[in-house]
């Protein structure tokens, strides 16, 4: 960032940036402390031959500088501020990687769903469930009742925008994944196999039947915490305590 003839100042920083797939780091021993993260980032990307921004398919390449574990996301922050009186600043360049054919962007809702699913799979009661992934925020969960260990049921949970809304809950034929079979449903409080829905406040169908629940403090959907795990636990509890058999 300095020309060879630039005057070296006593307060200049030595800045080193490592990019993991390069054998040589970016090194500049004469960086003015007032230089911003944004200016450094531009120089670093040029050095490593990287381009941030639109790629041929219209997506966006994103690179971030890190100081230790801290992402330097404020591009106006000065490097002197980042260095905090140190004379040497060692940074890393990280990049966001997306691969696969799914063209739709990853949303915060997707990430929240993935995080909560991962946590849900580690709890003790998850050993009673067989969880299969559907598309995006969709799960097929096989579960049963402690009162009827010989029978199991497969349920599809599908969120539109996790965890802000309640999931659609349907029971399905495990072989065909058909959601149109009343006999796929267990008989539990609020479940209406004949209507292929449930009138409960932990699924979308319940709020369609009772829109007034949305604003009722007693029945409203609760999005805080691990909503996915909470729904699974409620259903498991209902299956264990209020199950009366399979719908015929």
């Amino acid at each position: 960032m300095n020309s060879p003839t630039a005057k070296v100042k006593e307060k200049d920083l030595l800045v080193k940036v490592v990019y993991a797939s390069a054998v040589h780091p970016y090194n500049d021993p004469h960086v003015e402390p007032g230089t911003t993260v944004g200016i450094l980032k531009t120089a670093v990307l040029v050095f490593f031959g990287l381009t941030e921004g639109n790629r041929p398919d219209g997506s966006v390449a994103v690179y971030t500088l890190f100081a230790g574990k801290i992402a330097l996301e404020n591009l106006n922050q000065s490097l002197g501020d980042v260095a905090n009186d140190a004379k040497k600043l060692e940074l890393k360049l990280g990049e966001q990687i997306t691969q696969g054919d799914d063209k739709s962007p990853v949303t915060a809702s997707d990430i929240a769903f993935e995080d909560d699913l991962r946590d849900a799979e580690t709890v003790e009661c998850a050993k009673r469930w067989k969880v299969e992934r559907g598309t995006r925020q969709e799960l097929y969960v096989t579960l049963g009742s402690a009162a009827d260990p010989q029978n199991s049921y497969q349920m599809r949970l599908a969120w539109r925008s996790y965890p802000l809304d309640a999931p659609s809950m349907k029971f399905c034929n495990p072989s065909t994944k058909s959601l149109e079979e009343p006999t796929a449903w267990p008989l539990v409080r609020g479940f209406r196999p004949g209507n292929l829905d449930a009138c409960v406040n932990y699924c979308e169908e319940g709020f369609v039947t009772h829109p007034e629940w949305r604003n009722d403090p007693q029945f409203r959907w609760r999005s805080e915490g691990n909503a996915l795990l909470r729904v699974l636990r409620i259903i498991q509890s209902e299956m264990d305590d209020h199950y009366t058999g399979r719908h015929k």
Partner: protein
Amino acid sequence: MKSPYQCAERWLLAEGLFDAVLRELSIDGFRGQEGVAFLVGRHVGPEAHITHLIALRGKCLVKREDHLHIPAAMMNEVTDHVIEQEAVLLGQIHSHGPGYGIDLSYPDHYFGIRAPGFLSLVCPDFALRHGTRFDECGIHVFDAPRGFRRMKAGEIGQRFQTLPGKTAQTLIASL
């Protein structure tokens, strides 16, 4: 300006590396989703010795049947391992599900790491098929400035060998 990258003529794989790769990718394969891991090692003359596998754990990863998303913060964790090993990130391997083939998809070409000489491998069948061989993977190398190019069988045979006397190690990057 001197290039910060080095392109290997040959890649030598530590013993057990590919078995470790299959074990790692199959964890996600059993869940019906793509898995991913990174290949790390050092350049030794014209060779690159791949000695470490970095597996990813924790939140913020998005893995689906046909989609992977790794945030920059996770790549920062990977970089910390690379620095600690005084090594270089030499490649990445991810899995495709049955029927998805072993070519890089269009987004794979543009969204992965695009560094000269960088390897991008695609393991078939979610790495669940017993006895999958290394040369059954789609092996791509980034030939700047054109981009990733899939190697043919003859080239794979010539440019990939085993690194005798060195056992592969798996490192975990978690966030």
